């Protein structure tokens, strides 16, 4: 209906966003009436969301006209931002930011580079950047889950960890049940996502291709490329990160540096 009145695509988009915003504001008004007490938070998030994504849209139109190598700094910026967001709840772990950045760079960097050079990802900014961002985003979420879980497992089991150290076990040995749990917990949403692919949800890449009129069968294959790559990225990221992370929580003399929550 909107497209009948508005011809330029960008203005059309703005109008569509406007309608969505009105719908969101109605919902916000409703939450206010229900006294859910999150009105301010939702308003801020909505505001940030619309401003950020529209700015990125404009930015991408500029970026897409540049040389392909601009993908490198763009993805590095994404990795930096993703690393900062990853560690928000694990700031007490020394070098958490560095570890998360290294992990995401290893995972996303390797997979994006490899997939691009093999031609699995089209060697075109309009492919590399959105798909790269999905990998960085996936790596960020997985890593955040892993780091939080690892930290909470350690503080919850500090007594057993020190008991293990006191029995002459190595830091790697004493934390192995917890590294395993942290990695499993972090990868579970990803694995569930792979399993439910197409049945419960049609993810972003495929949805976008179908929306823009690509052959849905090709879109299906391509969605697997994206989801599979996100999974590989996530696995590499958490494995690199946890190996580095494990070192941080022990001193060179193999002492546990994190304190127990219950003071034992």
């Amino acid at each position: 209906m909107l497209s009948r009145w508005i011809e330029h695509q960008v203005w059309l988009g703005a109008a569509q966003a406007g309608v969505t915003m009105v719908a969101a504001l109605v919902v916000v008004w409703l939450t206010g009436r229900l006294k859910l007490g999150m009105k301010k938070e939702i308003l801020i998030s909505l505001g940030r969301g619309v401003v950020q994504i529209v700015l990125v849209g404009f930015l991408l139109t500029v970026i897409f006209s540049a040389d392909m190598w601009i993908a490198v700094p763009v993805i590095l910026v994404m990795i930096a931002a993703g690393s900062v967001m990853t560690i928000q709840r694990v700031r007490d772990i020394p070098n958490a930011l560095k570890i998360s950045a290294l992990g995401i760079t290893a995972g996303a960097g390797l997979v994006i580079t490899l997939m691009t050079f093999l031609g699995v990802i089209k060697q075109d900014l309009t492919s590399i950047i959105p798909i790269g961002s999905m990998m960085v985003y996936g790596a960020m979420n997985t890593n955040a889950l892993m780091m939080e879980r690892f930290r909470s497992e350690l503080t919850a089991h500090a007594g057993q960890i020190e008991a293990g150290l006191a029995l002459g076990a190595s830091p790697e040995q004493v934390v192995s049940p917890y590294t395993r749990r942290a990695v499993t917990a972090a990868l579970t949403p990803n694995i569930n996502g792979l399993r439910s692919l197409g049945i419960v949800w049609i993810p972003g890449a495929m949805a976008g291709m179908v929306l823009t009129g690509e052959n849905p069968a090709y879109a299906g294959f391509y969605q697997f490329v994206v989801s599979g790559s996100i999974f590989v990225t996530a696995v590499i990221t958490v494995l690199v990160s946890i190996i580095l992370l494990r070192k941080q929580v022990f001193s060179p003399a193999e002492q546990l540096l994190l304190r127990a929550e219950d003071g034992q």
Partner: protein
Amino acid sequence: MTESERHTFIRAENLTYVVEGQAILSAISFAIQSGERVAIFGPSGAGKSTLIRLINRLDEPTSGTVWVEGEDYRQMPPRVLRQRLGMVMQHPNLFPGTVADNLRYGPSARGEALSDQAIRALLEGVDLAGFEDRQVGKLSGGEAQRVNLARTLANKPEALLLDEPTSALDQAAKAEVEETILSVINHQKVTCILVTHDEAQVRRLAERVLRFEEGQIVADGTVLEVLGA
């Protein structure tokens, strides 16, 4: 063990532990002979646990060191030190699994297998014969603490560091664990450092007392000398 066979086994030298500018231990020095049974005795917050954790090197001294049979413990691999000075903490902190799994933990961490026979002997030593396949979650407090002791003994330590091994237990369990400790140290003649704030326990288990107050040794002597009759 006769006096002539005894030699200095552990010597703490100016052990100091400072947290956030506050000295929790201030330049502690003492020597313990092999085979000796020493109680670290003092009020809550005196720094007793801190001292025993430093001896096991679970925490790092701010300054000072510990000599173990003449060797500076900072030169020793921590795992070797911790195997030699077996620590038993206040809470058992057993690993999920069976009693036998727990006993095997220390040796298997070093790549050694603990035979079923050795497990049986260890459990007999702590009066828990036949407990091999029990799940640790189902043990009583006293039983769990005796498994904890056996788990440390499975490492064949040369000394035992016991940090309030009975203070989390009720009266009956406390008596049973204390008896087990006594029988173990009588049988194995192992050097023993026991942290406690229970004077009666000091009299029952120790021959020498280091009395602690506010991070310092305020008395060092035989039980009679320090605590009187």
